């Protein structure tokens, strides 16, 4: 059974009387125990997707569709019940760790707060637990550092602190939204390793958001490729990376390939204007294979191989190429 089941998820932002169509009908499911990656270019709706799961969107957002977690519909869940899910069952670690920590509170206190919220521990006990998990994420002298404020942490440490916060709740699903962006190469590795470690320890499911295919290849067994608010392709990592069934995925992969050609590969054109309501395939403007149908009709996801879906009118063609 899938842990997380998303159907027809649509998300719109109202900005100055204009509408940004951030998610344009997303269907996907995340199996329990998997490590799933969501990849896609900046602005493709990765963050928006994860935020809409826990209804953390800003007030100008409108969500439609269905998100079921362990069979419960999250989008209509009442606040109190939702709070039980947030943190305790689904934990999130964010893109800019330092910004995601409250600058006015000691790091340890923030972790302890979360801990108390979900475990009913006392203040002192929660603090001890916070120090403990901080130490577990590899922060040295955790007892002392717990009293420090976020700005006294380096980027990597802040990310660790966020992971610690996630760890303290022992969630079933851990969503990591580009946990390594802005960190230096070596620290990136450490953080990713830590995430993997934590997921393994908690026996949790991982939803990792990134736009780095290199990371995906290493860390995840499932992959979801997003483009302009739509899911283009899903499948096992090996399948998708080796036999992409969507021109977008293929083009993206090409950009990562190490070739000895004189020129660097890229995808021409720019991402579509998200303020336009979608018609046809959103990648149509940039795709080498575009035909008339691509502009007119939205492609449905087709299963090109078991568990491998692609939203392209020519999915099979691409897969076989």
């Amino acid at each position, binding site marked *: 059974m899938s842990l997380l089941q998303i159907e027809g998820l649509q998300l719109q932002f109202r900005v*100055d009387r*204009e509408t940004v169509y951030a998610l344009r009908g997303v269907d996907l499911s995340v199996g329990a125990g998997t490590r799933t990656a969501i990849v896609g270019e900046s602005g493709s709706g990765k963050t928006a997707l994860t935020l809409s799961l826990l209804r953390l969107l800003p007030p100008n957002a409108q969500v439609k569709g269905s998100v079921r977690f362990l069979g419960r519909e999250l989008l209509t869940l009442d606040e109190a019940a939702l709070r039980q899910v947030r943190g305790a069952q689904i934990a999130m670690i964010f893109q800019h760790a330092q910004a995601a920590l409250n600058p006015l509170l000691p790091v340890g206190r923030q972790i302890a707060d979360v801990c108390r919220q979900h475990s009913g521990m006392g203040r002192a006990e929660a603090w001890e637990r916070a120090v403990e998990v901080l130490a577990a994420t590899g922060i040295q002298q955790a007892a002392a550092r717990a009293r420090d404020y976020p700005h006294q942490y380096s980027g990597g440490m802040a990310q660790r602190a966020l992971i610690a916060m996630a760890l303290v709740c022992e969630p079933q699903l851990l969503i990591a939204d580009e946990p390594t962006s802005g960190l230096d190469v070596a620290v990136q590795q450490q953080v990713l390793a830590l995430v993997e470690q934590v997921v393994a320890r908690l026996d949790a499911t991982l939803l990792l958001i990134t736009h780095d295919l290199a990371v995906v290849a290493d860390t995840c067994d499932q992959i979801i490729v997003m483009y302009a608010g739509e899911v283009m392709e899903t499948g096992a990592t090996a399948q998708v990376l080796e036999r992409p069934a969507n021109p977008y995925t293929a083009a993206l992969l090409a950009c990562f390939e190490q070739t000895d050609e004189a020129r660097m590969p890229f995808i*021409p*054109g*720019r991402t579509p204007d998200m303020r336009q309501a979608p018609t046809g395939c959103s990648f149509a403007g940039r795709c080498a294979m575009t035909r008339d149908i691509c502009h007119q009709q939205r492609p449905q996801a087709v299963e090109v191989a078991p568990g491998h879906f692609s939203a392209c009118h020519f999915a099979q063609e691409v897969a076989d190429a």
Partner: protein
Amino acid sequence: MLAGEQAIPERPSLLQRMMRANGPMRVRLNIGLLLLIVLLGLLAPLLPLHDPVRPNPLNRFKAPSLEHPFGTDGNGMDVLSRTIHAIRTDFALAISSVALGIVVGAPLGALSGYFGGRLDSVITRITEVFQGFPQILFGMAVLAAAGNTMVNLVLILAFYNVPVYSKMVRSVTLPLREADFVQAARVAGNSPLSVVFRHVLPNTLVPVFSQLPLSCAYAAQMIAGLSFIGLGVAIPTPEWGSMIQLGANQLVFGKWWASIFPGLALFISVWLLNNVSDLFGSLVVRRA
């Protein structure tokens, strides 16, 4: 090359963009009304109104009537005409004092924020001193010492605006100092001063504009207050603040019109200015 490129129309001016800016009625209404007020002020001498400074001692404190829709004030002057003519005075006072405040304050703030160091501390200290002055008292003292001319009034108001704008611009400039585009401007060969004036200053426009309506309201309030203790704008110049004060004493005896109408005019103008400056902010500010 990108597909589907076509020649695009000329860039619309800011005003055009504001007029057509995405909220159809409300926005246009605000700008329209504000323009109308300004226009009314500009055209006041041409309108079929009573002479705003023509006293009629035999016709004082007359309630609103067809002849005098807003009634007459303590000098027997037509309140409607004065309210409309006051647009000129008030906008002129507000604009010149605010402009002066901005012209002096903004560069000070920008220089202070941009160059930092000793210059910054000196300018910051000076603005703090300026701000620390008890405003009404000091205004009174200056007017008493130098006479209550329009120029002095503008200077006093500007005196309060300078630190406001310099502080604001400084706080906006401070983070800009390290901003990439400022560095880029240096690389593009701008001298330090031209970096400040051509690149940094324009970027402080939005907060400056959001402060504008407040400053304008404040100007009218100050003038009203100074009139109240006896030293405002020279009588009988039509000006909302002093009109409010002139009528205020009769307000409690049921002769509300001399005070309420100019008060309303002030209120409406500030309201519209507020809306327009909000709008301006949202249009000029870079959209993420």
